[in-house]
């Protein structure tokens, strides 16, 4: 298996199944998160703990609430119940702690590429220091533009760039704020396959270079397995002790580490990757295959689950 090797999966021992103690290393921490819109429960008791420097990818069937979970972490929406904290601080409204890259509307149309990148540092300065730091901000923005290999396009407007280039600018725009965590909502979803692959490699290189913590939502399983160091599957297809007809939202049903050795895209076609895709399809995406809540594949060392007695019932 050239290029990539996955963490060897082993049988979980009983001890590992038990919710682990919260470790001090937890960087992003979600506990007992519920989100419902009116009567419709979308997220149903999400527990998640993420270490610093991790590249999390989140997949799930459509309508499972992937983007909702991302919006909760972003602070754009508030959970109906539960607590989210980043680096020990509880999450409020969107702020520079969390960077965001969307699929659509990646840039501000009325600003040039360079102005788009400079926007963050400029907004956080007052008038006086803005004058003082003018040169420094420009240089920093140029460096970031260079980092995404678009140095010669600084004076163009977003509409003059291709979709892939716009997305690269959007990444630079978010990274210049040095966010504690970079959130990405299907960032490459609207791109053609060639550009998408190119940007995936690019993002991985960037992640390795800058030791970022990334939380990426995608509907593309191959992409999720290729990019992540840890894959989460959010799904509404499971069963528990709450009775057949009870209204239930999505839970994390799959949580496994992915070990990466190289960034070659060849790894996408490897047999191991294919097997993993098949397993995730079955356990997370198949409405007919209902795993019991106590049998989820939550092998990752950071994974934990808080269940009520009722839920645990068979």
């Amino acid at each position: 298996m050239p290029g990539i090797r996955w963490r060897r999966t082993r049988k979980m021992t009983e001890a590992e199944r038990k919710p682990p103690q919260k470790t001090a290393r937890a960087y992003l921490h979600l506990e007992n998160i519920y989100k419902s819109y009116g009567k419709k429960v979308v997220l149903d008791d999400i527990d998640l703990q993420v270490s610093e420097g991790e590249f999390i990818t989140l997949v799930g069937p459509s309508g499972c609430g992937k983007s909702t979970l991302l919006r909760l972490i972003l602070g754009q929406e508030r959970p109906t119940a539960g607590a989210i904290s980043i680096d020990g601080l509880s999450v409020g409204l969107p702020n520079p702690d969390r960077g965001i890259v969307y699929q659509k509307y990646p840039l501000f149309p009325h600003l040039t590429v360079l102005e788009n990148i400079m926007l963050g540092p400029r907004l956080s300065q007052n008038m006086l220091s803005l004058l003082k730091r003018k040169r420094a901000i420009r240089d920093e923005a140029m460096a970031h533009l260079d980092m995404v290999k678009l140095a010669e396009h600084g004076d163009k407007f977003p509409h003059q760039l291709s979709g892939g280039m716009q997305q690269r600018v959007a990444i630079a725009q978010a990274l210049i704020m040095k966010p504690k965590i970079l959130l990405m909502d299907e960032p490459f979803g609207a791109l053609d396959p060639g550009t998408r692959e190119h940007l995936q490699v690019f993002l991985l290189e960037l992640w390795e270079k800058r030791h970022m913590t990334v939380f990426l939502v995608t509907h593309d399983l191959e992409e999720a397995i290729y990019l992540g160091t840890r894959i989460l599957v959010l799904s509404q297809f499971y069963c528990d002790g709450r009775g057949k007809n009870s209204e239930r939202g999505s839970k994390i049903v799959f949580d496994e580490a992915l070990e990466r050795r190289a960034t070659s895209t060849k790894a996408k076609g490897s047999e191991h990757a294919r097997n993993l895709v098949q397993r995730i399809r079955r356990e997370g995406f198949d409405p007919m295959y209902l795993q019991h809540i106590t049998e989820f594949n939550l092998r990752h060392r950071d994974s934990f689950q808080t269940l009520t007695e009722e839920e645990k019932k068979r």
Partner: protein
Amino acid sequence: MIPLKTGNFVPLFKKGHAVTERPNDRLANLKECLSLFAEFSPKTKVFLVLLPFIILVGVYLAASDMRFRENKDDKFLPWPTKMAEATYKIAFTEDKRTGRYLMLDDTIASLRRIGIGMSLSAGSSVVAGIVVGLFPLFRLINIGLLTFLTIIPPLAILPIFFMVFGVDELVKIMLIFVGTFPWITRDIAHATEKIPKEQIVKSLTLGASRLQVARKIVFPQIMPILMNTTRLSLGSAWLLLIAAEGIAATSGLGYRIFLMSRYLNTEIIIPYVLWITFLGFVVDWTLKKFIGWNYAWYKVEEDT
């Protein structure tokens, strides 16, 4: 080599695939002209645009000529030379009583009122519109009120305006302001709401405060829309101005028109109407060009 035969026949329209063989088939010609996908040559296009004007002028001249034959002193439909004379007199010779150029004075007076009125309404409605569009609280408070205000016909409350603001400059400016402000505000609020939520959230993650979101993200993107809405409101501004000037004023294009109408003096009225049309056209064209030139990204946004 295949000899190509080129015919002399130039059809009224670019030939479609259906009628290439029988160019003289008039019925097919007509059918093609009325097609939903009819295409015309550039010359024909210009002709078609000018056609209604040609007819209009023709009908006017014929009617004018007819009346002149019946009555040599007819003033109602004057011949163009008479209009030109009258226009020259009012535009380029000093008025005997005041020693001023009346048409110039009228134009300045009207443009001043419209300029001040529109600046006031555009300036205040951009602030109001952004606030209403951006904050759910103010949207809820104002959305019903704004709809209510836009439905009131401003001319209906003109008498009240004369009572409150007197009969001088202020009442005209206020009328233009009140007549255009709710419309522009509503448009700006809509445009603000249409700015993707993602952009607002993103600017917050880039460290923007609420004020900065309004000033640095929303306002610049609203500017071309404001100009466009203002451009479109100028029509109703002229309407209100001329109505107000017709009722109570001592100068202005509308004042002159209403004054002249008392003497059935159409040789002044018609040139004045054309002049107002021309002024409106120039302002409209300038604003349009300015938007295209200054906000290159806006046009593109609209197209996509």
